[in-house]
């Protein structure tokens, strides 16, 4: 563990050969930054995370965490905390003892470790569940205990493997917002692995898209959404996402402009919808409780068997149309069109939790 230069909390190049598959990516995370490793199943995301935790030996490359070389440090000596996909809470220990396990191993006395665990359970709002066994916790509660357990060792690098994948849709929204808050508060570096673009965009400052063991694109959510460089990225991150003020079934996202949503929300809220759910018309469409607004085509990019339109108007929007529809409608940059969006195609959820 020698001192290395470099300002990033995590600086790594991960090369892992497994049969025909080769993972070869460089991942760096700055102090306080949240980076998402985004990609389809089998892209090597989890392998990368396991390599950083020391659970998967590297074929080549290096791992520097907090200025120390940890390339071949065994997992129990790395300054790392991991939230596993299915949490892996020890079934024979209570929630409190699960969280106290890490601090105890890192030298705290039993009472001190329990005090710290108790403190962390309070932070994730689970004080009253401290003495429950994992099987007596709901999915969302287990996720929060797993997060508390990983954070209780004050890791320099926090790793999360599909932290929300095991949750049902409703729990997922609440947990995502809460997780966002904890990741913001975490002083160290955070790397999360996910196949869900919404999780990645909401939780991370910086996205790294991995396909087939290689990085295909990286940058902020805005950059990647605006200029996807592969079909996969376009489909994956091509999500229209806005933040605004919700009241009943409408979220105001620009002065005088609101989106009607199927789910009621109030206060600070997000609205998201896929480009494929946006329909484009030459004439103003009529009827039914839809969102309809005028827009101007500002860009057209080809992505495999469909075209992605960039549309300006009260809000900037992406829409996917087939090439034949684009020809039929005469869509060229500068063309004035009408946009229609069904309320049922939108997803609305609070941006802050419990406030």
């Amino acid at each position, binding site marked *: 563990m020698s001192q290395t230069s470099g300002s990033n909390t995590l600086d790594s190049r991960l090369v892992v050969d497994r049969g025909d598959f080769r993972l070869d990516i460089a991942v760096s995370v700055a102090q306080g930054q949240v980076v998402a490793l985004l990609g389809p199943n089998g892209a090597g995301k989890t392998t990368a995370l396991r390599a950083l935790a020391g659970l998967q030996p590297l074929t080549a490359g290096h791992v520097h965490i907090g200025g120390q070389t940890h390339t071949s440090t065994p*997992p129990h000596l790395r300054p790392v905390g*991991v939230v596993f996909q299915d949490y892996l809470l020890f079934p*024979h220990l209570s929630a409190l003892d699960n969280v106290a*396990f*890490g601090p105890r*191993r890192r030298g705290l006395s039993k009472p001190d470790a329990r005090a710290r665990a108790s403190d962390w359970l309070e932070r994730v709002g689970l004080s009253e569940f401290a003495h429950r066994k994992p099987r007596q916790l709901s999915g969302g509660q287990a996720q929060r205990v797993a997060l508390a357990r*990983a954070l209780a*060792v004050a890791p320099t690098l926090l790793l999360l493997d599909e932290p929300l994948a095991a949750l049902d849709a409703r729990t997922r929204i609440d947990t995502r917002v809460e997780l966002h808050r904890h990741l913001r508060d975490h002083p160290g570096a955070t790397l999360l692995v996910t196949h869900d673009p919404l999780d990645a965009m909401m939780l991370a400052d910086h996205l790294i898209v991995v396909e087939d063991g290689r990085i295909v694109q990286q940058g902020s959510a805005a950059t990647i959404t605006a200029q996807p460089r592969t079909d996969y990225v376009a489909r994956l991150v091509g999500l229209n996402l806005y933040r605004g003020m919700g009241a009943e079934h409408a979220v105001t996202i620009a002065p005088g402009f609101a989106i009607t949503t199927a789910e009621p929300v109030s206060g600070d809220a997000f609205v998201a919808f896929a480009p494929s759910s946006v329909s484009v018309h030459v004439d103003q469409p009529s009827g039914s409780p839809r969102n309809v607004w005028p827009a101007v085509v500002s860009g057209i990019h080809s992505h495999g068997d469909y075209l992605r339109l960039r549309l300006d108007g009260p809000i900037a929007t992406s829409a996917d149309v087939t090439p034949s529809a684009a020809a039929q409608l005469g869509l060229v940059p500068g063309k004035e069109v009408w946009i229609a969006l069904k309320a049922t195609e939108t997803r609305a959820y609070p941006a802050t939790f419990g406030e």
Partner: protein
Amino acid sequence: MTRASGKPVSKPPLGLVIPGIIGLAFLVLPLAGLLIRAPWADLPGRLAQPGLLAALRLSLQTATLATALCLLFGVPLAWLLARTEFPGRRVVRALVTVPLVLPPVVGGVALLLVFGRRGLVGSWLDSAFGITLPFTTAGVVIAEAFVAMPFLVIAVEGALRGADARYEEAAATLGASRWITFTRVTLPLIGPGVGAGAVLCWARALGEFGATITFAGNFPGRTQTMPLAVYLALETDLQSAIVLSLILLTVSVAILAALRDKWLTAA
């Protein structure tokens, strides 16, 4: 049984039913015979025989000590087999199961050759520490452990393979060394498997006959366990043999009842 409910049931063929019933009778009839021929009237008096109690106590003590010995060495062996890779692991695994199929008498002879006074290890134990194992109570324990340990190792190895090794990875990321992980995470996880293996091991040790009589002899109060006492009684006093057998049968049934939830419901 409940699995079949709701489905149309066709009659099972006689070609299977009749041999099946004969097989069942073959297993159950001897036990019934034991119960029918038991001298129930003077049972309390016979149970109070001094030799019987000594044999029973010796059996329980040696079987328990043998189980403890098996746990001490068998659990780590099972862990090595289940969790590590080393050259010849498959051969080692096969070797572990040899005492399962080996005639116990042969095991006893083999033990004599190694731990006997002139044996490979025995002569060293004798000269260095003045310890002799054959024909002692310690020898009984050794013989029972030799025969019973594979049961424990196989049960624990199965439990280890069934347990999710990722819990051990989670423990490692929380700062636990492999030893701490083993004691704080792995052992509690496989606890039921170790318990079942220990009971099975204990039952096998309790019934041990061939290796015991070969390696430890048949000295009342010192090496004469229940199975040996049954065999000896059979030559002189049939009624006593039946009473001793009844006691062993009771113990076996009690073990089966204790394991019921774990094993029988799996069928």
